[in-house]
């Protein structure tokens, strides 16, 4: 089975700078921030907020590709978002789920308690049943690369469930400082203002549009 680190390394090598990436809290944000230092990252989406935030971003900026770098436990908290993604037809959205099938496994030496995907739930089938026709499960780096590239090239929405090892035995070094939520907000908002021509932050003097 493939590791989170191997897939996130691969993702960092194929995702262009202008693709917006919203990552869930924990090792998705930690590894992505370490391996892909870029202005187009929004980190630390917790407790079910990753895919919904990426959906809002995708609907607001239909000309930009948006990736939700989500996780099984996080997604399951707001699983209904898959129906919303399909119904809103977010064609520029890719939901990429690192499915390790357990809670808190990324921080332990042994797997944590199982998520629903550690039991009978199959996320690819859930996504397909919600109306996301382009739904995939991958278990190796080559298929991951091919599927993500397909998603970047073609209209979606796309759902990719990456079945990864239960615990993160490999991890990158801790050489980069991942910005805190406020710093990240200003950084990300300024990047989008600059590259998408929208106004997000206010001037504080009533000239905020």
């Amino acid at each position, binding site marked *: 089975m493939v590791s989170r680190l191997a897939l996130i390394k691969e993702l960092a090598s194929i995702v262009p700078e202008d693709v917006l990436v919203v990552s869930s809290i924990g090792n998705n944000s930690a590894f992505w921030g370490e391996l892909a230092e870029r202005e187009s990252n929004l980190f630390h989406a917790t407790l*079910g907020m990753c895919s919904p935030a990426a959906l809002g971003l995708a609907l607001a900026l239909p000309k930009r590709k948006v990736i939700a770098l989500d996780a099984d436990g996080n997604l399951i908290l707001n699983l209904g978002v898959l129906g919303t993604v399909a119904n809103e037809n977010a064609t520029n959205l890719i939901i990429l789920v690192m499915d390790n099938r357990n809670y808190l496994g990324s921080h332990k030496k042994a797997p944590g308690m199982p998520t629903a995907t550690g039991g009978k739930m199959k996320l690819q089938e859930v996504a397909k049943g919600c109306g996301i026709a382009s739904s995939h499960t991958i278990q190796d780096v080559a298929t991951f690369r091919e599927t993500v590239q397909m998603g970047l090239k073609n209209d979606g929405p796309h759902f990719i469930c990456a079945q990864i090892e239960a615990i993160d035995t490999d991890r990158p070094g801790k050489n980069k400082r991942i910005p805190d939520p406020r710093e990240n907000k200003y950084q990300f908002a300024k990047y989008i203002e600059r590259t998408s021509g929208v106004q997000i932050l206010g001037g504080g003097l009533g000239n905020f549009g």
Partner: protein
Amino acid sequence: MKPEKAKLVVDGLKEAGVDFTAGVPDAQFIEVYKMLDADPDIRYVGTANEAEAVGVGFGAWFGGKKPALMLATSGLLVATYHLARINILHEVPLLVVIPYRGDIGDPRWMGLYKKTTEPGLNAMDIPYRVVSRPGDIVRTIKECNESARAWLRCIAVILNEEALW
């Protein structure tokens, strides 16, 4: 809810420049949801629960939209973790519009929401105004949204029975 009252809420959102809304339909506010869904100037995203709506609104703000959440008093409880987080930790502004079930004068068994709505907003450090007169709806929504965007804070408008029904 009378359609003319619902229209005041939508007019207020338009005056405020709101162009993106998310939420879950609520019986007491249903005319507002229907109008938003049909309005070409404001995108309405119907979500499966109110926490999801907060996430969608949060993302839309980063995409340059001026989002508002349409939350029932019950839905506010569902949305609590996400609202608290984005208001206190991220400091991202979302206007929250709430039809006030359970305010004094509500004849239904909704007293629970008197105990949870305003104390809940206070606990999340979300400033709010309670609107009791229909004539104040448009202005209050506009003012609350202006402050939310300037302060980078969530701000709520609570519309009670006198204002809406």
